[in-house]
């Protein structure tokens, strides 16, 4: 395809969407609205309407928080890391992954607020001088979370936006309808001069290099929310790299989950080749093996430590009331991805999609098992009361988070080029 053909083709995807698009958006809005209703019900009635009961005071909301912050790692990995490694195959999938990062972080960052008993006081987390003389505890990982997530969100948004600039300018010059003023505003006067491109290239490389350590820091800090406690099953030195590996794993799985349908719905087959998906499949396999290594190291150390509390917690995971979830998680995260050793599975989009969906399920369950099962069997057996069962409120809020994420993504792919036109043109010209 010629360079101008690429532009016409991709801008053509941004045309007026059809009825299925509006139906999907409507459905997602309905789920979101119900979730908001459930959240306000919780605010009015108190956290008791969630399934929380001592000792399990972290449940589905914290699971969702860790899950969504994990999803954000796809963008950095696919886009920034592969950019720094000069892996050219990233071009087809980088834009979507960057957008996914931004939307996942927006979704995930809501959960600490949802999880608070008095959500309206969430701004107390900010180190602002106030009339009560309250000051935040800088030694608390919750505060580290705030800083890490805000910084990562800022850099991710800027990274996505800077990458979009040339494409927005192209859209501005081609589109003649209501979107033109929007593109004109967002294009920041981009003319495509040599000087602008020079600045663009250095800024993009710099942001990529900044985004990688930030992404690692974010999930490390999330892991320290757990690891800095004394709780067996949480207090483990491997948690930071293990959480980062899990985040990349779930991020890649979510990318495949989104991109496979998007590719056929928007007709992007020319840009997102099977080869790209095969590479994503390989990445998923590598991350699955690393996750299995982390599981093995955790279980081995718990056994080797000789501590009855450590060992007891891990045995309770595998044999206690949460065992079905733990075994499902191991099957989804460690066993199913082994199918990706077969090239036939990696190159079959339906098979790859199925594996990725199962990994998403497995990774959500992993966070659930870590959060809930450790709390359920903490030091004092007298507190081991009953099974934690999430309520409809938590279910509705969780569903709403997925709805919000997909909604933002759907709006994005119709408003902005879902693949980086400028990079594809560049490759088409170089070829």
């Amino acid at each position: 395809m010629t360079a101008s053909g690429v532009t016409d083709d991709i801008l053509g995807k941004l045309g007026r969407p059809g009825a299925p698009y509006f139906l999907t958006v409507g459905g997602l809005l309905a789920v979101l609205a119900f979730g908001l209703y459930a959240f306000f019900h919780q605010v009015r009635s108190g956290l008791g309407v969630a399934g929380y009961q001592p000792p399990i005071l972290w449940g589905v909301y914290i699971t969702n928080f860790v899950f969504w912050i994990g999803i954000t790692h796809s963008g950095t990995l696919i886009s920034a890391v592969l950019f720094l490694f000069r892996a050219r195959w990233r071009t087809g999938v980088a834009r979507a992954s960057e957008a996914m990062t931004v939307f996942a972080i927006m979704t995930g960052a809501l959960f600490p607020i949802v999880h608070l008993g008095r959500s309206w006081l969430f701004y107390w987390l900010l180190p602002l001088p106030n009339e009560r003389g309250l000051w935040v505890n800088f030694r608390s990982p919750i505060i580290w979370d705030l800083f890490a997530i805000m910084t990562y969100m800022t850099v991710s948004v800027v990274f996505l936006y800077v990458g979009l600039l040339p494409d927005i300018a192209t859209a501005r010059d081609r589109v003649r309808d209501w979107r033109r003023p929007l593109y004109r505003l967002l294009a920041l006067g981009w003319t495509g001069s040599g000087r602008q491109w020079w600045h663009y290239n250095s800024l993009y490389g710099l942001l990529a290099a900044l985004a990688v350590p930030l992404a690692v820091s974010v999930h490390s800090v999330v892991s320290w929310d757990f690891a800095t406690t004394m709780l067996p099953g949480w207090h483990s030195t491997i948690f930071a790299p293990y959480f980062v590996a899990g985040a990349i794993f779930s991020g890649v799985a979510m990318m495949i989950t989104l991109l496979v349908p998007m590719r056929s719905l928007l007709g992007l087959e020319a840009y997102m080749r099977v080869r790209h998906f095969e590479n994503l499949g390989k990445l998923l396999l590598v991350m699955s093996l690393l996750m299995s290594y982390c599981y093995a190291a955790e279980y081995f150390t718990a056994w080797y430590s000789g501590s009855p509390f450590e060992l007891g917690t891990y045995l309770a995971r595998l044999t206690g009331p949460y065992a079905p979830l733990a075994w499902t998680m191991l099957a989804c995260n460690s066993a199913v991805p082994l199918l990706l050793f077969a090239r036939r599975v990696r190159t079959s989009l339906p098979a790859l999609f199925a594996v990725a969906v199962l990994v998403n399920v497995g990774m959500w369950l992993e966070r659930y098992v870590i959060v809930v099962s450790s709390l359920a069997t903490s030091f004092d057996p007298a507190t081991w009361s009953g099974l934690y069962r999430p309520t409809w409120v938590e279910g509705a809020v969780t569903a709403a988070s997925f709805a919000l994420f997909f909604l933002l993504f759907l709006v994005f792919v119709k408003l902005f080029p879902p693949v980086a036109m400028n990079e594809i043109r560049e490759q088409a010209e170089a070829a």
Partner: protein
Amino acid sequence: MRPADRAGALILTSGARRVLAALALAGAGAFLHGLLLGDALRAWQALLVNTLFFWGLALAGVVLAALLQLTRARWSRPLTRALEATAAFLPAALPLVLVLLAGAGGWAPWLHHPPGGKGAWLNLPLFAVRELAAFLILGGLGAAYVYCSARRERGRRAQDRLAAAVLIAYIPLFSLVGFDFVMALDAHWYSALLGGYFLTGNLTAGAALLALVAAVGAARPGLAAHVGPRQLHDAGKLLFGLCILWAYMLWSQYLVIWYGDLPEETRFIHERMHGAWAPVAWTVFAAVFAIPFAVLLSRAVKLRPAALAAVAGLVLAGVWLERFLLVAPSLWRGDGLPLGLAELVVGAGAASLFVLCWIGLLERVPALPPSDPKLDPSA
């Protein structure tokens, strides 16, 4: 590659070979002297540290070569052979591992003071089987990969499969080496990350060796045509990245232990960061992270062979010292640092043996992979 080209590549003069052979013999002599006539524990410590470092370095070269092969890195093609040739040390490492296993009574505290409840894992027969199995699997896969890479007629697919097998075996098995040869020295201490931390340090040493080869190769007539700014820059960046990863692993382990402040966990850190060991700990931190991080931020440093070689040499020495810091404080109960002439001679002997094996193989195969269709002729 023509023989004339090869002459300018990485080779040893006969004088250098003699000096290295003499040093290797002196190292063996120093070890035996310590064992029979001097302080046996110090001799065992020195052997353990050098085995972990140089066996690890031999594996790290092959693992990095396999990684660069699988990721289709083009820049590193001219340096591939030099990385792969580290495998030549593997046969020489086997006697070292066997001596360590045979003399475990001299250095493994858990043999004399079996920790309660850990006998199922820390017992000599199982220990020996585990370590030998790890050695043979890693060595076998590494050798098969290097052989396949040198004789490319079997095709890229076979090479890719072996590369994947090398990586898949290396991570758990070399972690196991870390757990067994480092963590078990203090049998009450445990850290799930120790294995990952240990192998990251090892790969950092591998990247330092790669950077050193790039820097030396850039000045050699036989390789200079293929090793240019691109290779220097990328080798420098890889080293930079691995130094950061090492520090990340160090910090991830440290922070959780510091925050938890549990006596059974803090002891390992405390005894290395206080008293006589504190200067060693800070030197390691400076050599493997602080200085390389600050210096390698500069593109000019990465592009200047002498500067890159200096940083790479510093990191190699730093990782050696880090292995020493991991091992010795768990064993040594005397006053002062058990780091003197004897340790240096054993270290120099092991290093000489490594260089003899490594360059010895490099001299026998073309220093460049000329059959590689992706060998970039314009460095």
